[in-house]
């Protein structure tokens, strides 16, 4: 048996080695995520166009369908001509406005001969901010040899799109009634203190303790015992972490919504119940079968 096994194993290694070798013959390259560039209202035009080019080639994914050199893709219009034709596309719409519209709302005007397939640059999966879309417009203007006229406003520079669990903290704080008494960023009640920056002076562990044990401390100037003692315990553990993660973000800190304690303690109880149930039923079935076996 061992001889057969060794031969089969050697054969397997040889076949796998051939496939691995062919893998080494393919073109070798790594692709890294796009580097985050900071755009401000003061970013010079030349730098804005440069950032725009990087966004167009990377995060924007524009070259999947368009081309900026002779050898590119032709699923969408040639971007080298974008500026020269932009002014005449829609009567009364400037070239800059048209280019921005074609990024933000691509279906507002479809170039003849091209299908509807481009997603809005501001929505997933591209997820550009308005400032980033304007940077691409700046690049397209410079690519077409035109003057860069697009201007980034402070309001265009939105924070990165929320992603992941910690960003549910605000919704949860409202859902569990925290904002009925506490003010956050100017919104909420005034019965308790403003907690917008509470995480700047308190550690996450202290905040977590305060939620489940309101008497842990009282902010000077506020009456003790007002916060309901059982309120925080009604909030699932994982969601308490998310609220604290949100408060940390407001104070300019970062705190993972998971980590120190398992976020799935409630799941654990349910899991335990399922395990218990199946074991109990099987044991009962065994007992009944055993009793039946002893019967004459």
């Amino acid at each position, binding site marked *: 048996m061992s001889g057969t096994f060794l031969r089969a194993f050697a*054969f397997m290694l040889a076949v796998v080695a051939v496939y691995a070798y062919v893998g080494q013959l393919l073109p070798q390259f790594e692709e890294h995520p796009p580097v985050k560039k900071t755009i401000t209202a003061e970013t010079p035009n030349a730098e804005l166009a440069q950032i725009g080019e990087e966004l167009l080639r990377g995060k924007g994914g524009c070259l999947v369908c368009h081309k900026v050199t002779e050898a590119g893709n032709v699923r969408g219009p040639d971007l080298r001509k974008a500026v020269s034709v932009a002014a005449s596309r829609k009567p009364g719409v400037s070239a800059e406005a048209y280019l921005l519209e074609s990024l933000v709302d691509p279906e507002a005007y479809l170039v003849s001969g091209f299908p509807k397939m481009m997603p809005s640059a501001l929505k997933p999966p591209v997820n550009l901010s308005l400032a980033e879309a304007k940077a691409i417009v700046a690049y397209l203007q410079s690519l077409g040899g035109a003057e860069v006229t697009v201007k980034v406003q402070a309001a265009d520079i939105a924070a990165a799109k929320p992603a992941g669990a910690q960003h*549910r903290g605000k919704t949860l704080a409202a859902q569990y009634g925290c904002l009925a008494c506490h003010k956050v960023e100017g919104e909420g009640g005034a019965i308790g203190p403003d907690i917008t920056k509470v995480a700047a002076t308190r550690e996450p562990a202290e905040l977590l303790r305060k939620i489940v044990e309101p008497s842990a401390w009282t902010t000077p100037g506020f009456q003790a015992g007002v916060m309901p003692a059982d309120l925080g315990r009604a909030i699932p553990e994982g969601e308490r972490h998310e609220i604290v993660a949100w408060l940390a973000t407001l104070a300019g800190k970062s705190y993972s919504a998971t980590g120190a304690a*398992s976020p799935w303690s409630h799941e654990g109880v349910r899991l335990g119940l399922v395990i218990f149930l199946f074991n109990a039923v*099987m044991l009962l*079935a065994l007992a009944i079968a055993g009793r039946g076996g002893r019967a004459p």
Partner: protein
Amino acid sequence: MPFAALARLLQRVRVMSATMVLKGTYKGVLKISLLLVATYLVAHALASFLPAADYRALPFLGNRVAVWIVAELHLMFAAFVLGVPIFAFITEIVGVATKERRYDELAREFTKLLAMAYTLTAVLGCTLLVLLLVLYPKFTAYLEKLFKPTWILYVTLVFGEVIVAYLYWFTWDALQGARKKWHLALGFLVNLFGTALLFIADIWVTFMMSPAGIDEAGNLVSLWKAISNFTWMPINVHRLLANVAFGGAIVAAYAAVRFLNAATEVEKARFDWMGYVGSFITIAAFIPLPFAGYWLGREIYQFSEQMGVSMMGGSFAWLWILQAMLIGSLFFAANFYLWLGMGRIPGAERYVKFQVPMMLVLALGFVVWATPRSIIATGPEMSAMGGSHHPFLGLFGVMAAKNTAVNLMILTTFISFMLYRRGNRVPAVPWARAGKIAQAAAVALAAAIVLGYGVYSYYVPSNVRIGFSVYQVLAVLGAMAVFTAIDIPMLKGARQIGAIQWGMIPARAQYALFFLAITFTWLMGLMGYIRSGIRQYWHVYGRVADESAHAYTMTHGHATLIVSAIVVIFFLMVALVFAMAARYERGRVPEAA
């Protein structure tokens, strides 16, 4: 009390010992229970002990490679434990229908491999869960919260699967004869639970690829929409078919080992036949697999043109050339095995003359399919070619040529199998000649449609061309259906030239079976990487970014080395399963005596 009722039922049908059956089944339940409890405790302890972080780093291997290896091994074993029961159930039904005892024994032999494979699948799944919770806590917590109802359902189904699978195994001898229908019902339940488990696991995987049902902040808006996302059903179907093919390939490899090690002619005949049935089910499930793949590809494009283009024409384009090489090799190996098998069929020498033309079609198809389209050429190379693509070979690198090639290869393999099937038989029905002409016409028409659309594809835009692949596929499937529909009544009562001489097959045919299993496994590893890799630097494509240090797409060389390592580890673990099954068999000998 369903289990108490089951215990009473077992007593009523006078199973030799209901207590023994339930004891054996309970061992399986206890094993899974202990594993789950250990997983929960370890994950909980590590999460509490380690400092809070969005990502944690695993030394040596790194997070991504560790999760990749464990996830892929878990998936391969899961494919095995889901594919083998489907295989066993079909074989058992064939046994009942044909009243041939050997089919029942074959199904039993396969099922024997399951107990150990279940344990390994569960251990790998639990390890994967711990790795995800510890190394990617924030993202795992996000997914866990999003799909909370599915986790408990999944665990419940795992217990259901284990219970019915153990009952299926332990009641094999007792539920024979008039009670066989109860055993078949258990086999059906094993597959029902297994398929449900697959579908649930696919929810999590496909949501990461093509998210739906969440708002822009990632909050759940509709659980059903998140479940029924673009790629969920295509992946369900693709994996279901692939599991059957994979299960068959592994069983055929098992039979090949046993054949090579057989001490008697009887044993050789038994394992030769087992290898044939394994390879037959592999090929039968493998043939529709590319069609399921087309569907999946189309849904990926529907979800995101950008993702589709990255997959087929961007970063991952070269891996499809590797995939073409692997699938081409599978076609070669399957046909080679059938042609070698014809040597033990009296009368099959009538069809040897077709082998060379079929080989030519396969070789040409292979060459066309493996022709790359987008080669990064240097300036002098481009000027020599007169453009970015070769003036002649460039014609074969496009999907128009590749779809044509693969459809013709599928058709050729199908014909190969049908010739094998009728090797020792001569139709006795009076309309045999007309039937054969109709079969030949169906195949010729399908080949003409495939070729015709292939050539016409060059003259139409890409959005029209993509629709042609559907007609090509339908032509091939139609020809296969017509051919089979004529073949079955035509061979009824056929005159036999001689009995198949099972066991009289060269050893190299067994290596063809190994080759099928190894290549199929490597292909699964590669396609798993492409499926997961096309998310690029996203955990959930376009919604939750991967902000870890491993969020880059590695080189193809690096990726293929990891796939190779996974395949080697997998086969070492499979060898362990085979060894345990052999040990169990040796342990049963005195009992049987």
